[in-house]
């Protein structure tokens, strides 16, 4: 492999890393803004979590209550 090819390869790698870093930075900034907006807009209130926990509890209680002592 010649010097020119090595230079091209190194340049490609550096360009690739820079692109990935830029995309990651943008994605993080977006998700940060999105998360803040979700909270501001009253989102992320764990309604589903509450319902899920109750449903899980009901499932076990229904089974257990029908079993003999």
């Amino acid at each position, binding site marked *: 492999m010649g010097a020119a090819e090595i230079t091209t390869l190194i340049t490609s790698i550096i360009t690739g890393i820079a692109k990935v870093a830029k995309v990651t930075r943008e994605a993080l900034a977006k998700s940060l803004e999105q998360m803040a907006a979700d909270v501001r807009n009253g989102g992320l209130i764990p309604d589903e979590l509450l319902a899920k926990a109750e449903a899980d509890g009901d499932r076990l209680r229904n*089974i257990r209550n029908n079993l003999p002592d």
Partner: protein
Amino acid sequence: MRRTALGLSLVLSAGCAVGYKASYVTGAVTKQFSTESYGIYSEQFNKKIDECCAGDSCNPESPDVITKSELDKCMGPKYENATHEKIELAIDVYYEAAKVHSSVMQIVEGSEEERKAATNALLESAISLLELLPDGDKLVSKLKKLTGR
């Protein structure tokens, strides 16, 4: 892999937050982490019920039916009825704290103290919930790391 990526993005997001954003981000990270952790617990909980009720053992009409205490023993201390009821109570408290947090964050002119108090209350209630889940200590220390506490 997906969890690692999520964890990493949460750490970086929480780390990037400054000032008033910290309350938003800490709240969002806490809510997301608690929901994910409960989701994992819920999967295991339901799997455990399926295992304990394999065959016809939870059918009261069956000759192979098990007793309440046999079911409790099979579910084990982490998933038995008494533990789950404590988890449900902790989720009620956490749910109220999450509602307060979201409403405080919506007040544009709200005070920083109020935001901090709501965020701390949310975090405390999430910790009380996570402590009850299997590997609770690890979950609590992970949440503390994620939120920089």
